[in-house]
Structures are given as C-alpha cells and as structure tokens.
C-alpha cells in the first residue's frame, strides 16, 4: 500500500494557455482562480483560504515584481499572506512544495498555490535573454551560452555516450503535439509530423525549433487542505502522497554528470520513498519537457527506464496515450505551452483532472497514481510530486 496523504487537492484551475493579448499576468491568474473557485462550491475563498504561494519567474516581462500580493489581490484574496516563489521554470513546483509545508505545519488549513507568466508580448530575443537569467551569469550567460544551449550540451553528451538520436528527440515532439491536440486549453492543438520536427530550423544544435517548448501566457492553481478536512469541501479529492525538491550547482559545468539531473534523482528518491511507491507504480506522469531531450533525460532520472535507454522508451510508444505509462497527456510544455512560472501547478492540474476522470478525450483509464516533475534552470532545481486517486 502506498504512503499516507500529506495534503489533499480539493480544486484546481488553469487559464487557456497561449496568447492573451492585452492582459496582464494578474488578470490571467484571475481566470485560473475563478475556475478553481467554481469547481469547489463548498469552498468560501475569502473565509477559508489562509495563504497563497505563487510561482512567477520574471519581473522583466511586465516590469512587475511582487507577484504574491498582486495575484492575491486579483484573486479577491487581499489580506492573506501571499508570497511569490521564484525557482526559474520550477517556480510553481516550489510554490506547491511551500504550500505543503504551510498546510502540514498547521499554520494554514487551506492554501492556494499557483503560478503565472505573461511572455508573448515580448520578442523571442528578449524572452531568450530573460530565460537565460535562470542560468549562471558569470560563466554561462556572460559567454553567450543560451538556455537551449545548456540542454543542447546535455543532449550532445547523451548522444555521444548512449547513441541517442535527433529522431528520438523529434518523436517526443510528435507525441506531445498529439496529446496537445486532445487538450482544448493547449497552445498548440495540431499534430505535427516527424519530418516537420526534424527539418525545423536550428536553435542550438542538436535542438531545433520543434525540440523547444513554447513562449506562452498562462496561469494555473490548485487548492490544498489537510487530508482530514478534504471531505468538507469535495467528494473527489486527489491526495499528494510524496513530495521531493532538490537543488544542484547553478552552473551546468560544475556538475558531475552532463547526461542526467542529480536534483531530479534526489527529489524523485525523496518523493518515491515518502509515497512508498516505485517507478513501476506510476500510471501517468507530467514531466518537464522544456526541450524534447529533457523529457528523455527525465525518463531515466525518474527511473521509467534504465539509464541510456530513454531513446528506446520513446520509440516503443509506451509513453504515448494508451501505452504503459503515458507521459505529458496535457501536451506538456512542448504543446500545451510553457508560461514558466505557471508550469509546475499546471502539471498538478493535469494530474488532478486525470485522477478525477475529468480529462476528456485524453483520459487515462484506471489511473491511480500520477507524478509531476518540474525543473528549474538547467537542473539547479527539481521538484517531484506523487499523487493518488481517492480510494473510497
């Protein structure tokens, strides 16, 4: 039997992911908050929610820091303690972890955690520069090393060591675009061909345009409570049974391995142990496919396959909807989109839908255990969470 619930999710919300011209981040967050409140009529947001943690990566996009207070205000929750968490692309994975700390400490019975980013009003060159801020400045950014370049260097090393191919990476894109075609909130809802992915223009060799996640506006949130209070709010909670977060050196160059993320391995070990679950127990997962190669590396770091065999796993089709362990049924960062601060809790939103049978055309049948994997920077932060369907 798996571990005891740490906290329970009683509701969740997510804005449409894509372009939200004319809206500010806080306004997009209102949309996610509204959905979460609407899904849970027994919740009195103003009376019950005692804290907000919100992931938001960059002040540069809107010249707006201090997103904790701004998001609380636009969600109608002014007055509660509201804190922004920043861990690059894992900002809301860290918010979720902070929400678990707050709930389990006993300081807050009901906590809202979420994330938001507004990116599409900026040029690709500007976004490239802002995202690079999540990497080491004095030795990486200063020498022209972009964010895609860091994952590209890991991909090059993996290709050299294990024979992983550009085609296998492209297959991740094809799969995730297929999943995205089944998600009405995804930024990209069209399937792509392997040929189109392989012939797209170079970003940082071996990564091409279709190996990269998207520039996206979006917001997401989930509402947590103590497991013993969940039935007060809903008859279909989802329980979080494992939580791990870990760090690594900010510079990729300082790490022992260039073909795996140690922070993910550490976070996964903690989460699996807490959940009393093994990798084989996971029915579906949302993993951090900021680049197609990152999804392959996640297969290995989360032990969905042996080290060096992630290329074979994507080729097998086992991570596609209908396979042994569907990965990124939402479309992932690749097709659903990657509003960086919102991604961690958007992954939790997808698992919440799946484990309450609300995922529509992309529903994974009989899924009981789900996992989310949210990476910040080139792997200096990783958050892994394990979820279980309510077993009545």
């Amino acid at each position, binding site marked *: 039997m798996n571990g005891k619930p740490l906290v329970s999710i009683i509701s969740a919300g997510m804005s449409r992911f894509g372009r939200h011209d004319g809206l500010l981040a806080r306004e997009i967050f209102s949309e996610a908050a509204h959905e979460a409140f609407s899904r849970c009529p027994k919740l009195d947001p103003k009376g019950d929610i005692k804290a907000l943690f919100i992931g938001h990566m960059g002040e540069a996009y809107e010249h707006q820091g201090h997103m904790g207070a701004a998001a609380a205000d636009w969600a109608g929750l002014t007055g509660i303690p509201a804190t922004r968490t920043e861990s690059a692309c894992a900002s809301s994975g860290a918010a979720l972890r902070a929400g678990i700390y707050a709930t389990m400490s006993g300081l807050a019975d009901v906590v809202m955690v979420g994330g938001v980013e507004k990116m599409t009003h900026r040029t690709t060159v500007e976004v490239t520069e802002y995202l690079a801020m999540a990497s080491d400045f004095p030795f990486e950014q200063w*020498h*022209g090393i*972009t964010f895609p370049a860091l994952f590209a260097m890991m991909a*090059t090393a993996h290709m050299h060591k294990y024979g992983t191919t550009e085609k296998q990476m492209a297959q991740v894109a094809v799969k995730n675009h297929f999943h995205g075609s089944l998600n009405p909130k995804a930024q990209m809802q069209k399937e792509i061909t392997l040929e189109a992915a392989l012939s797209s223009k170079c970003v940082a060799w071996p990564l091409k345009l279709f190996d990269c996640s998207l520039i996206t506006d979006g917001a997401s949130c989930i509402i947590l409570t103590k497991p013993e209070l969940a039935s007060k709010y809903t008859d279909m909670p989802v329980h979080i049974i494992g939580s791990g977060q870990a760090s690594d050196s900010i510079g990729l160059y300082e790490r022992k391995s260039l073909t795996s993320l140690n922070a993910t391995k550490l976070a996964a070990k903690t989460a699996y142990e807490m959940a009393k679950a093994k990798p084989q127990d996971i029915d579906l997962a949302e993993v951090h496919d900021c680049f197609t190669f990152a999804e392959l590396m996640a297969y290995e770091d989360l032990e969905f396959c042996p080290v060096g065999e992630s290329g074979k796993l994507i080729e097998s089709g086992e991570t596609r909807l209908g396979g042994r362990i569907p990965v990124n049924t939402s479309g992932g960062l690749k097709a659903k989109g990657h509003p960086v601060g919102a991604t961690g809790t958007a992954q939790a939103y997808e698992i919440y839908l799946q484990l309450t049978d609300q995922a529509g055309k992309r529903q994974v049948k009989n899924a009981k255990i789900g996992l989310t994997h949210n990476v910040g920077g080139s792997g200096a932060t990783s958050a892994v969470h394990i979820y279980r369907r309510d077993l009545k």
Partner: protein
Amino acid sequence: MSQQEPFTIEQFYKFLKQQKLMAGQCIKCGKIHLPPRPLCDNCFSQDFKWINISGKGKLLTYTIICVAPHQFQALTPYAVGIVELENGLKIPGMLQNLTQEQLKIGMKLTLDFGSCNTTQQWPQWQRYCFKTL
C-alpha cells in the same frame, strides 16, 4: 603571488586580464575551486591560496548556437562547450573558429585569454574562449 586577493569571481577575471588562469585552493581540505569561492563547500574553511592552472584541456560537450540574445546575435552561429582542464576542473566557454565538422568530444583545446571589449557597464570581465592547440 599575492595571498591577499579576495577569492571572488571578480578577482578570477582580474587575473585573466593579466593572462593568468587562477583557481582557489582550500588550505584546510585541499579542494580546488574554479571559479574561486570565499567559503569552501567541502569543509567550510575560509582559508585559501591561489594556484595557477593550465588552460589546456579536452572538450566534454558542445553545441552550435543559432538563436542568441541581442548582444551575441551578430556572432551566430557560434559554438560553445564545456572543457575539462587539469585536476578535473571544468569551465564553459566559446569555442573559437570551430565548425560543427571540426568539433569532436574529447578533442584537445586550450584557453585563449581573450579580451574585454565591453562598454562602461558592469561587469568589465574578459571574454576568454577556447581554441585548438
């Protein structure tokens, strides 16, 4: 060699400007830090000495960047990589005048001290690079 220089990244780049590649070595546990740091992450000592290290190494991995931030756009496409120096120290940087066909993991490279051709703004650091021996 002065022992009074602070064990900082700023100082690392000042030495580079003097054509010296320097690392900090912890006097207590012996760990070598590149870049130098003021607190040893192994034994928490604050006592270090500077050591001169060779700029010769081998290429561990690389990429060719085609999409770059504004200040590097004119250079695209350009190669960057991570180089392993002696003592197992690793450092990233641009790989000068090397095409994709020439790049091979394991190839021998050496550090070129480069120049600091930046504006008046912070930081005034050298942009070193790596080239073939």
